[in-house]
């Protein structure tokens, strides 16, 4: 039994069509860590998250969340995880308040606690005025807020944010980062995937690069830059995906007389 927040060992995910989305991935996230998982589209980030949360069936390997098996006897493991997925997967039939209430119910939270937690998160994410609105009528930004609030309803110890700021305005992005930094300081472990490298650099204490279904490097932002012999995380990422010629810092050096 592992003492890690997330302990993944030799995880393989092969889809029926034969595509191998994850190739023997092993990864450890410490309790309380703010961990970034970066990689190009199709690298395997969402598949890894889906395997951890039960939305995909691993082909082989093991996943433990706070020492609990997340594949076969998944009850405790799933109870500890909150997922804010990339897609705006909200139930159109429900109101904003019902969305939060039902989610907490799926995780066995008693009625009074659900009511209090719903009120708290509606306020935190500026959704109180929209509480009786059907979710299908919400704007994209409001839906994103709701998805984040939903992920937090059952007080997960491990919060997984799969590209949470994709397509959101700067105000919500900053609001979100302030909030997740706060709950991280309070002890919640966070696994973040994002295409905004400066965000990952600022927020994450540890970062892993995933490419073609494999973890190719991990460490702090500084360690990754050093490993690739480049000045920053963005250049390390470009080195990973083989597009060094796009480096902005290199271009600045070249134009400086």
């Amino acid at each position: 039994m592992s003492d890690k927040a997330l302990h993944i060992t030799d995880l393989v995910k092969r889809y029926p069509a034969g595509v191998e989305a994850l190739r023997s991935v092993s990864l450890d996230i410490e309790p309380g860590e703010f961990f970034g998982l970066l990689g190009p589209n199709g690298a395997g980030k969402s598949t890894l998250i889906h395997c951890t949360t039960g939305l995909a069936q691993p082909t082989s390997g093991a996943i433990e969340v706070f020492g609990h098996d997340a594949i076969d006897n998944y009850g405790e493991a799933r109870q500890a995880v909150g997922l804010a997925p990339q897609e705006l997967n909200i139930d159109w039939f429900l109101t904003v308040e019902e969305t939060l209430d039902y989610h907490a119910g799926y995780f066995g939270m008693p009625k009074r606690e659900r009511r209090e937690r719903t009120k708290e998160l509606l306020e935190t994410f500026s959704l109180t005025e929209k509480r009786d609105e059907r979710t299908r009528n919400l704007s994209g930004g409001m839906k994103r807020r709701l998805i984040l609030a939903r992920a937090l309803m059952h007080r997960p110890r491990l919060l997984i944010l799969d590209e949470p700021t994709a397509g959101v305005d700067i105000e919500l992005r900053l609001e979100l980062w302030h909030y997740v930094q706060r709950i991280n300081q309070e002890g919640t472990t966070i696994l973040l995937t994002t295409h905004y490298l400066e965000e990952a650099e600022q927020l994450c204490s540890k970062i892993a690069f995933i490419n073609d279904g494999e973890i190719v490097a991990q460490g702090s932002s500084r360690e990754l830059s050093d490993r690739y012999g480049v000045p920053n995380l963005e250049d390390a990422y470009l080195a990973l995906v083989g597009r060094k010629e796009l480096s902005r810092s290199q271009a600045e050096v070249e134009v400086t007389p």
Partner: protein
Amino acid sequence: MSVAQIRFFTLWRREVSRFMKIKKQTLGAPLLETFLYISVFGAALGSRVGELHGIEYVVFVIPGLIMMTWSINAFSNNSSSILQQKFQGAIQDQLSSPASPMELLLAFSLGGFMRGLIVALLAFVAASLLVDLPIDHILVLIPGLFLVGFFFSQLGVLVGVRAEQFDDVSFVQTFVLQPLIFLGGVFYSAELLPQPFETLTHFNPIYYMINLVRYGFVGYTEVSIPLSLLALVAATGALFAVNLRLFSTGYKLRA
């Protein structure tokens, strides 16, 4: 309530709340349809047909209509609900929760079961106001109707899980279920059909369900009641086992 009870009750409540939010469509429309059938076949045609096997025609027809109402509503509720949630991606919220395959399957199943039960109950009350509807064998009627409702709930879950587009659901309902129900003897007695249609009717599983329910109401049957009950229990159990397997393996639900 325990954590598991809260979880299951919430999963089920979500299914019920879905059809209650669109009750004009999910409860009102099927009730009106049943009422129209009773009016047309009872008042308009019934007076000309007179009696079938010593039973007033409209009374002969109503048990089959109640069964039809329950079955179609149980089926369409579950197939639509699951497909809609797959389509929206909203089903991921339930699938990533600690709920077991059994809890998920039962909650989805009982949503459609409830809708069928409510519409059938309303149809029964409406029919009882129009005609004197007997209940001759309540000990056959209740388990018979409940089994029929649960069978079609399971069928709705199966089709909803397998479906990839709304056309897949409507195909089964329009081209498989409705013909089987209409040709299963809701509006007539198979014994009055010429050959080979009478024999062919015996290969229609719905025929046995209609006879079960009709026997429960008016005491008339053309098939063995114990055998029909047994077959229905076996078929419902088999369907439930297939669905449980689908939920356990995540077939078309998990990647």
